[in-house]
């Protein structure tokens, strides 16, 4: 071979060597890429699984959160928790136990899930027997020592050897201290096999715990509040009844106050009607005697005797006086009738319907009732409308006026005049009740309608009179104004809407 040819071969050989080496490098490069790709794929898988895990955990947490807040009662929250936890951890049977410091069960709930009913029943039986064999003191102590989720051997908290549930995870849900009683609520997740325990998921569970505790505490507080509300409502009911009784008593009190006067008022006519009747009995006796000849000898012969008797027995006077006596008796009884009628409207209170009534009439009736009180040292001056119709309740309004009149009288211990005026002012019917009494001290004016406010000695007034009057007037949509000047007198100005 020529040198030139040899050279050429050498060049080619070197070129070939380089090409081979370059190919080798390329192949190695390819292998590296492939390996990297594979590793990346594995990494991707891991990341995807991680993401899926996190997604499950997140959906567990958010689901639990959302549902927990929406549950109406503590029991429902716990039930939801057991159900969700069971689905999330997929394996365990769940128990919820509430224990107090005496290790008594407050309550408990089971939860298990399975596709077949027989398996569910079987598991429920197992849960029940586990609960029966539970060493409550031990469990309570454990919960006192450790406030966080813990994994323990089931035998540690059991009185008997457990061969079905080997492990349990205890999730303390809440601790409640009520007076001297302490209560702990714990979820117990029971596992047959340690392999089933997923630590990551348990960590998620643990992280849901604080939120759940808050929710449970809130719910507890809410339930307590609810209970307090019920108690309050009951108290309120009692108060309302008491108030009703007091209102009744106030009416009785004013009735009692009036009774003496009314009795006098009735007694008077009854007294003179009685004496009238006595006199009438004597007159009848005299008339009988004077007419006796007619009975003995019914003929014209008795006429002289009769005319004699006519003069002797003063029959003309008897007849004349009898007319007088009968007239005054009727009048007396009419008065009794009127008083009794007024009294009966006053005592009739059950009606709450507003109806057209005549204020003038009501004022007159009320004045009748109290007139006896004003008989000696007091005067009453009235300036009333012929009639003034408003919507109201006669008996109640009567109570208001009687109360105002009686107050006025009491304010004028030394005597004085009560002025009662009733007049129209545009669409209003105004009633002014004015006395010449000692007046109300300025600082007391805003208190006079306050229940139980009284300046009277204990036992003399309930302090309800004006407050009841005020509420009655409010019921009548009436406005009240009080004008008072010490030692000059007090005036109540009441305005009603006229009813057309």
């Amino acid at each position: 071979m020529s040198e030139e040819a040899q050279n050429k071969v050498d060049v080619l050989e070197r070129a070939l060597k380089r090409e081979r080496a370059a190919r080798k490098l390329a192949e190695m490069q390819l292998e590296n890429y492939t390996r990297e790709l594979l590793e990346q794929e594995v990494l991707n898988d891991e990341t995807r699984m991680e993401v899926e895990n996190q997604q499950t955990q997140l959906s567990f947490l958010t689901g639990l959160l959302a549902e927990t807040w929406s549950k109406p009662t503590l029991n429902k929250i716990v039930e939801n928790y057991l159900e969700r936890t069971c689905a999330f951890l997929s394996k365990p049977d769940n128990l919820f136990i509430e224990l107090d410091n005496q290790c008594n069960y407050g309550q408990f709930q089971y939860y298990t899930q399975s596709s077949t009913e027989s398996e569910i029943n079987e598991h429920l039986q197992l849960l029940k027997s586990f609960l029966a064999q539970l060493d409550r003191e031990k469990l309570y102590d454990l919960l006192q020592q450790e406030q966080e989720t813990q994994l323990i051997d089931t035998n540690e908290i059991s009185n008997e050897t457990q061969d079905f549930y080997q492990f349990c995870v205890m999730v303390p849900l809440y601790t409640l201290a009520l007076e001297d009683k302490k209560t702990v609520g714990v979820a117990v997740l029971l596992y047959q096999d340690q392999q089933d325990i997923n630590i990551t998921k348990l960590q998620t569970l643990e992280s849901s715990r604080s939120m759940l505790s808050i929710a449970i505490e809130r719910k507890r507080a809410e339930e307590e509040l609810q209970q307090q509300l019920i108690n309050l409502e009951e108290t309120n009911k009692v108060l309302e009844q008491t108030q009703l009784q007091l209102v009744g008593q106030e009416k009785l009190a004013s009735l009692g106050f009036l009774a003496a006067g009314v009795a006098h008022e009735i007694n008077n006519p009854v007294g003179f009607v009685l004496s009238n009747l006595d006199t009438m009995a004597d007159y009848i006796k005299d008339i009988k005697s004077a007419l006796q000849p007619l009975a003995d000898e019914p003929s014209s012969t008795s006429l002289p005797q009769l005319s004699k008797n006519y003069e002797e027995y003063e029959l003309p006077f008897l007849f004349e006086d009898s007319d007088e006596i009968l007239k005054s008796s009727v009048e007396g009884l009419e008065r009794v009738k009127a008083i009794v009628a007024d009294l009966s409207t006053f005592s009739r209170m059950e009606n709450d319907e507003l109806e057209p009534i005549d204020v003038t009439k009501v004022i007159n009736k009320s004045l009748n009732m109290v007139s006896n009180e004003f008989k000696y040292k007091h005067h009453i001056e009235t300036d009333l409308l012929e009639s003034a119709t408003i919507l109201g309740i006669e008996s109640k309004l009567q109570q208001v006026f009687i109360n105002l009149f009686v107050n006025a009288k009491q304010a004028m211990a030394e005597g004085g005049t009560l002025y009662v005026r009733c007049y129209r002012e545009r669409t209003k019917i105004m009633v002014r009740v004015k006395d010449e009494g000692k007046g109300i001290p300025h600082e007391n004016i805003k208190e006079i309608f306050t229940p139980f406010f009284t300046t009277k000695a204990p036992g003399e007034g309930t302090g309800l009179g004006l407050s009841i009057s005020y509420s009655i007037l409010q019921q009548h949509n009436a406005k009240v104004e009080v004008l008072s000047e010490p030692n000059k007198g007090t005036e109540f100005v009441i305005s009603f809407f006229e009813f057309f």
Partner: protein
Amino acid sequence: MKGSVFNALQEFVETNHGLEAWDTMLNTLDLPSQGIYTSSIKYDDSEMFSIVTYYCEALNVPASDLLRTFGEFLFSKLMPMAPSEAKKAPSLHAFLYMVDNLIHVEVKKIYADSNLPEFDYKDQSDQHLTMIYNSERKLCHLSEGLILGAAKHFGEEVSISQSKCLHEGDDACHIEVRFL
């Protein structure tokens, strides 16, 4: 610099000067890679400069001419690897605009470690385009050759000059492309 450029350079030398010319160069320079170039592997830039310097001396031509001629050749090797959108470019102008905005972006996706020159575009009109070249390698003349190769590919005539050049101490090379 990627092995593919060395492969192209080898092909360029062997085509124009024969197998021995490449082999002699390798025997003379004793490069770290021993002349074993695989397209996807990155090699030290100094190898490229050594090779270029060697041939400039051996052939007695200025580096700018050699690089420009190689650039034209290199274009024909790179064009088949370009993204299809670039291949379908309607004109040389449009294509040149895609170099920085599309082609280099795609190259970066495949070779994240590649050290590509940067182009800015200025004074764009139908007749004229300024491509501002910036690279620590200062291979502006190779770019000129690539532009010429592209012009040939699109069947257009251009004249190329540089108003500023890194080799003249400027901040960047301003390659003025005039479309004739």
